[in-house]
C-alpha cells in the first residue's frame, strides 16, 4: 500500500486546519497552534507548511471576500481535502496500532 509521508509538524498543521473548519487561514492556524501546543510557532513556518500541504493535495484553499481590516487584503482559507482526511486517518491508525503493540508493563511505567 502506497502511503503518503506526513511529517510531524505537517500532521499538526493539518489537524489544526481540520479543527478550525471554516475559519482556517494563516493567522488562526498559527495562533491555534501556539495555544494548543504551547510552543512558539513562526508564521513563516506555518505558511510554508500550508503551502506544502496544498501542493501535496491534502489541503485546498480559496480566497475569502475583501475585508476592511488588514488594508483590504483578502484571506486565504484552507479546507482539508478527502486525501487529507485519509492521510490523517492513516496516521491515526498507525499510531493506534503502535500504541496497541506496546507491552502493558511499559505502558504502566510511562504512567499511562
Amino acid at each position, binding site marked *: 500500500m502506497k502511503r503518503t509521508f506526513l511529517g510531524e509538524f505537517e500532521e499538526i498543521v493539518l489537524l489544526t486546519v481540520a479543527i478550525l473548519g471554516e475559519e482556517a487561514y494563516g493567522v488562526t492556524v498559527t495562533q491555534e497552534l501556539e495555544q494548543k501546543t504551547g510552543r512558539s510557532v*513562526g*508564521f513563516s513556518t506555518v505558511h510554508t507548511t500550508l503551502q506544502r500541504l496544498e501542493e501535496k493535495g491534502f489541503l485546498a484553499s480559496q480566497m475569502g471576500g475583501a475585508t476592511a481590516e488588514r488594508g483590504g*487584503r483578502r484571506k486565504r482559507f484552507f479546507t482539508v481535502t478527502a486525501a487529507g482526511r485519509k492521510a490523517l486517518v492513516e496516521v491515526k491508525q498507525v499510531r493506534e496500532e503502535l500504541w496497541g503493540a506496546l507491552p502493558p508493563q511499559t505502558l504502566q511505567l510511562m504512567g499511562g
Partner: protein
Amino acid sequence: MQHTPPRWVRTLLRWWADPNTSEEVEGDLLELYNYWVATVGERKANWKYTLNALKLLRPFAKDKQSQYPTTYLYSPTMIRNYFKIAFRNALKYKLFSFINLLGLSLALPSALMALIQIVSYYEYDNFHQDSDRIVRIITDEKQEDGEMTHWASSPVALGKYIKEKWVGVEQSTTLVRDSKWVLSSGIKTKNVRAIYADAAFFQVFHFPLEKGSYPVEAHTVVLTHETAEWFFKEVNPIGRILEHPTYGGFKVVGVLKPFNQQKTQFRTDVLVPLAGYSNGSDKAKEWSELNAHTFVKLSKGRSIASFNKQLGATSSEVNKLLNAAAGKGLAFQAQTLGDISPSENELKNDPYVQDVRSIYINFGFQLIILVLAALNYINLTLARSMNRSREVGVRKVAGATKSQIIFQFLTESVLISYLALGMGLFLLWMIKTFIHVSWLTWEIDHWEYLILLFLAFNFVLGIVAGASPSLVLSSYQPVKVLKGTISPASFGKIGFRKSLIIVQFTIALVYIFFIGHAYHQIEYMANDNVNYQRENRLNIHLTGTSNERFAAEVSTVKEVEKIGYTSLSFGNTPPYIEIKNTKNDAPKPAFFYAADRQFIDNMGLKIVAGKNLPETKSEMALPMVVVNQKAVEHLHLGADQEAIGKLIVLNDTVSATIVGVVANFCHYDYEHKIEPVVFQYQPAAFRVMCLTTSPATDRASLEATLASLWKKHHPYVEMNASWLDTDMYERYYPYEDMQFAGMQSIVIFVVAILGLIGILTYSLEKRTKEIGIRKVIGATAEEVMRLLAADFIKLLSIAAVVAVPLGVAIGLYMNSYLVFHNGVSYFTMAALLLVVLGVSLAIVGYFSWRAVQTNPAKSLKSE
C-alpha cells in the same frame, strides 16, 4: 492607536516573496503584527514581523514577472509625456513660471562664475613645456616642540645646491617674491609686484619676450607688457631707467609678451635677477630663511620618488649645516607643478594658490543667492500644491505609481533649471562683455569640462529644487485629494513658507548691509581728508636738478597757496630707517620722510606737542625731526610734551632733536598697524613738490600754466604732476568690483522680492472670496488692505530685527581688520534698510490694493 509595521520589510516582501500568495501573506502578517503589538509590545512586534517576513523571502525561487505589463517608467512615450505636461504647466501658470525662471537665471551667473574660477584653479601654469617634469620643492619645518609648519617655499640656496650636487636634475631655478616694490620712472610712480629670478627661470617656464632680452646682471629689469605700457605708453622702454626708492636704478632690458596673470602663480609686474637679491643678504640666512621658491626640472625618465629620496638626503645635510637643535629641522619634498594649484593642504607662503578647502568654502558663499532662488521655487511649488493635487489624484487613480509622479515633478524642476541656465548663460555673456571682473579669467582651456560641469550643476539644482515638492505632492492619497479634504502642503506648524520669506529677506538684508558697509569703508579710504589733506593738493615729481627758480615762479601763480617738499607723497610705502634713544640702544624701525615745514602744513597733520619743522631754505639737512605719537611711545619718551627737545639717533649716524609731535595718522595702508614715522628736513632727498591750491581752481588750466613754467626750466623732461585726491580715489575705489558686488546685492534683493510677490499673489488669490464677503458686509478698502498686509509686514519686520544686529556684527568684524576705519555706518544701514523695506512694503501694498479693488459682485458671483 494604529501601528504600522516597518515599511522596508513590506517592500522586501513585494520584491522577493512568492508573488502568488503575496496578498494573503501581507494581510496575515499585518493581522499578526497587530496581535503582537497588543500582546508583546511594539518593539517585539516589529522584530517578530521582520523575522517572519525575512524567512518568507525566496529571492531565486520564482519568476517575478507579473501577468500584467507594467508601464515602463522610462519609456520614450512616458518621457515625452513628462516633458509635455511640464511645458503645459509652465505655460499655464505664466506668472509663477516667470518668477521661478527669472529668480533662478538671475542667481545663476555668480554660481557659474564661481565654477569657471574653480576650473581655472585647476589650469594654473599648464602652458610651460614639459610641465610634467617640473617640480616645486616644499619644506616641512619642524619646531623643537614637535609642531610642523608646511611651507610652499624653501631656502634661497637650495636650488643651486641641488643642481650642483645631484645628477638627473636638468634645471633648477630659484625665485623670491616681493610684492611691495615701488618703481618710479621719474614721471610716474607705481607700487609693483616683483619677482627675483635667476636666468634658468626663463628656460624652465614659458614667458616669452616681446622685445629685448632677459635680465642677467644686477640692476636690470624685465617688465610685463602691461607694466611697460603703464610706464612708457608707446615709447620703447628698452634702455630706460626705473628708480626704486631703496635699491636704486634698474635698467629695463626686456618686455614680456602679454600673458594671463590669472592663469599662473607667477603673477608679477616686473622680474629682476636673483643676483640683485642675494647681494646684500646674510650668508647664514640663505639656509635658515624659507623665503624662496625652488623649482626643479627633472631629466627625462627621472621619477619623483627617486628625487624625493635625494631630497631626504639633502634635508639631513642641510640640517647638519644649520646646526639645528634636536627635534628641529627642515624636510624637503617635491611637488609636481600640476599639484600646486589647487593645493590639497594649505601651505604657508604660497601666493596666488588656493587650497581646496577655501575654494569650496568660497563656492558655498557664491551659492547663497542660488539657494535663495531655489527656495523660491520650492516655496511657490508647495504653495500651489493645491492646484496640482487633483492632477496627482487622478493620475494615481488611473494607475500612476509614486515614482512616476515624482519623475513628473522632477522633470518640471529640471526643465525650469535648464531654461534658467540658458538665460543665465546669456547674462554671463553680458557680464563678460560689459563688466570687467578682476578676480576672474574667462580664458579656460577645457571648455568641454566647463559645459559638462554647467549641465551637471543645473541638473543637480533642478533635482534639489524639485525634491521636496515632488515628494510632498506624490504622497497625496487619491481618496483624500479627490474628496477635497486636503490643505496646502507645508511643513509643520511654524509655517514653512513664512519662515522662508523671513530667511530670504534676512539674507538679502545682511548681504546688502555687507556691501553697504564695504562701500562705506571704501568711500572713506577713497575720499579721506581726515588722516591727511588730499583735496586740492597737487604733487609735481621733481628731477634731480635744482628747482629753486621753478619754485619761485610757481609761487607767483595766484592759485598756488603753499609750496612744500617731500621725499615721497603719502599713500606710498616709505623706506624704513632705524631710530633709537642713544647710540647703544636696540634700534627700532620707523618710516622716514624727508619733508619741510610747508609739506607738513599742506598735509594738515595735527601737531599735538611742540611745533613744526623750522622755516628754512637751507641746502643742508637739519638735525631736527618731527615724529608721530607712536615713535614717542616706542622710544619710551613719556608724554608727548616731554618728548620735545629730546635727542634721538637716526640710522646710527645722525642725532636729531625732536621739535614736534604729530598725532598718529594713516599715511599709506589702512590695514597696517600704526608705526613710528619720522620727518626730517633733508633737501637732498626731496623728490616731490607738493602744492596747496585754492579750492575752486580750474584744474586743467592750472596744470597747463604749471606745465609751461616747467617747460622753461626743464625743456627736455615732461612735467609729471598728479592731484593727490584723484590719485587716492583711483587707488582705493575698485569701481569694477564694486559694480559687480552692487549687482549681486541687487540680484539677491530681486530674488527675495520675487519670492515675496509669488507668495503674495498666491495667498491673495486664495482669499479673493474672503475679501469679497468682507466688502459686501461693509468693510472699507482701507480696513481690508490693513488686514491683508499685516501678515507680511510682520514677516518683514522679523527679518529686519534679525538682520540689523547681524549687519552691525559684520561691520564690526570687517573693521577689526582695519586699523583706520570709518566706524559702522548706521546711517548707510538705516538708509539701505529703508530702501529694502520701502520697496517690499510698496509691493505688498500694491498687490493688496489690487486685490481689494476687485468687484465683490464678480468674485462672489458663483456663491
